[in-house]
């Protein structure tokens, strides 16, 4: 008898309230609506780049539908990829970015470990200070930095201006604070007992860092690597200021300075260059995302 009563009550309640399923459906609809909106917003520029890169200069300047390729051609790609200059930009960018990622990680990982774990006088203030330096915009810094390197050149005779490797000294000012901040967050989330266990097991601070903290905070390390690489790869202002000779230029500056001649914009090649330039970060994301396993710390302690 009671079972029947419950069965009767079941559907009626669903019709009357049914809040969970109903709310969820609407939430999903709104999410899809906004996700689609953002996807369009984010994808239109690269699609436009792709379309333009497949057109000849004549077709670009002709008044045809800009969203369609009538005579697709790979000439822009062939020209750029067979140009030594473009390959030089590419190589410079790659060298700078990889080196900056390595330098950044070598500085920020131990720094974050020290700031997060070795409680010393002023460590908390220092941690905040590190982050605050990141908030200083690079457009404010480039003039004093330029002066500094000119002075350094005058004093020591070591000429760094207009050399691609000057960027190895400059980019870390952008990447190290933020990467340190990211790593502090990840290291701080590792339970204290884990380093105490390592300490008792006989590990030194360095061993604790390399054998426990870095493997456990790998997702954070990857996030920081991606950040450092993206910042270095996409940086425009500093290389524009610090390097001028074409053989010293990195990709973003190289494309702009060599493919825009006066008021003549070689749109096809600019778009091709930009598209090819966007490829490495994309490939790196795709590759590293496989290793970006969230919840790696699961199981360390009672979760």
């Amino acid at each position, binding site marked *: 008898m009671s079972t029947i009563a419950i069965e009767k009550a079941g559907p009626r309640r669903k019709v009357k309230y049914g809040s969970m399923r109903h709310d969820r459906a609407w939430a999903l609809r709104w999410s899809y609506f906004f996700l689609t909106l953002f996807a369009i917003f984010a994808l239109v520029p690269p699609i436009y780049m792709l379309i333009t890169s497949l057109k000849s200069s004549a077709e670009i300047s002709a008044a045809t539908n800009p969203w369609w390729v009538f005579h697709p051609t790979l000439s822009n790609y062939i020209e750029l990829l067979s140009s030594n200059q473009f390959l030089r930009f590419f190589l410079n960018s790659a060298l700078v970015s990889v080196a900056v990622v390595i330098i950044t990680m070598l500085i920020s990982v131990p720094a974050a470990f020290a700031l997060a774990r070795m409680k010393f006088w002023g460590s908390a203030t220092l941690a905040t200070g590190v982050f605050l330096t990141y908030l200083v915009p690079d457009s404010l810094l480039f003039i004093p930095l330029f002066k500094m390197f000119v002075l350094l050149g005058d004093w020591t005779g070591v000429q760094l201006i207009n050399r691609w490797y000057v960027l190895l000294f400059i980019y870390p000012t952008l990447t190290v604070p933020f990467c340190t901040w990211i790593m502090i967050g990840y290291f701080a989330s590792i339970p204290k007992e884990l380093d105490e266990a390592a300490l008792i097991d006989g590990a030194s601070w360095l061993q604790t860092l390399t054998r426990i903290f870095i493997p456990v905070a790998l997702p954070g390390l990857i996030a920081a690597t991606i950040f450092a690489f993206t910042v270095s790869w996409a940086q425009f202002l500093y290389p524009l200021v610090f390097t001028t000779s074409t053989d010293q230029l990195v990709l973003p500056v190289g494309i702009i300075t060599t493919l825009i001649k006066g008021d003549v914009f070689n749109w096809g090649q600019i778009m091709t260059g930009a598209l090819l330039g966007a490829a490495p970060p994309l490939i790196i994301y795709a590759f590293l995302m496989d290793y970006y396993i969230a919840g790696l710390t699961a199981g360390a302690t*009672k979760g």
Partner: protein
Amino acid sequence: MAEVSLRKVFKRYEDVEAVRGIDLDIADHEFVVLVGPSGCGKSTTLRMVAGLEDVTDGDIMIGGDVVNDVPPKDRDIAMVFQNYALYPHMTVAENMSFGLRLKHYPKTEIKARVNEAARMLDIVELVDRKPKQLSGGQRQRVAMGRAIVRNPKVFLFDEPLSNLDAKLRVQMRIEIKKVHQKVRTTTIYVTHDQVEAMTLADRVVVMNKGRIEQIGTPNDLYHNPATLFVAGFIGSPAMNFLPCRLEEIAGKLNVRLTDRIAFPLPLGRATRYQNVGRAEKLLLGLRPEHITEASASARSGIEAFDAVLDVTEPMGMETLVYFTLEGTQVCGRVNPNACARDGGSLRLAVDLNNMHLVNQTGAVI
């Protein structure tokens, strides 16, 4: 294997004194449990022995050597944490062998030790798994395995069972005891659970507010508590405390609870309390099992009275009964067949042969 000694050990943080002058001697092979409420300084004491906290004052000795300034890794200790603290990226075998690998032990010996510990803890089939693939109980076994393979002088346990559910806790308690029987390593075990303390320890150290209240065997603490705190802390349900005073009635010493209730003391207790001031305000301490249903046969020291029960809690093998005496709630343990029911009245009897008297300083007389 080693003895551990603490001499006048203090730990002060900026404005808090966590440990206030602890003296403790732990013999070789002994299993000592530090027990007390949270914030009593038991974990701090253990962490000082481990070397994870600096000692503010006093000396800690392991195997006769003062280790105050010796780093944890050189103290030859192993510690099991409440939340296991397993390395999440290593397998069970790697977790257990981490310490040995750091010390560059030969591979064959590492393997042998890990296998032996795994066999002892019944986790042989788990050695290739990662911690996240294990249940809470299995993780705690691995944590113990990590301690065992190192073959240290001292085992330190910091509330290792607190994260487990009740049933598993009982099971692991037995496991820990078995392991200690096999390896016989000197062990210091911290818990806030007095049942754990009683069941595991050779000796229990009851701590309160940074000081040691009493050290003794489980039975000693249970039957002869030294202070009000120990009497109230050890035993579940806790000991009943009733305000009382001693009174001479017709030449016999009585304990008077209320204007209407006074019980004559049995001979042994009367002699013991002969010199206690008659006007002194005291507390009568009685364990629930010494308040039971009255039986027909009269014995010395067993005094019967009628009580109206507020609440009864049938536990199966016994029934806990709660009644109020002069505003104080009292708990008794009666036979499940004693017809105890909520709001009903029952004739109960107190066993004064097992009574305790606490004076105003909190000392058991």
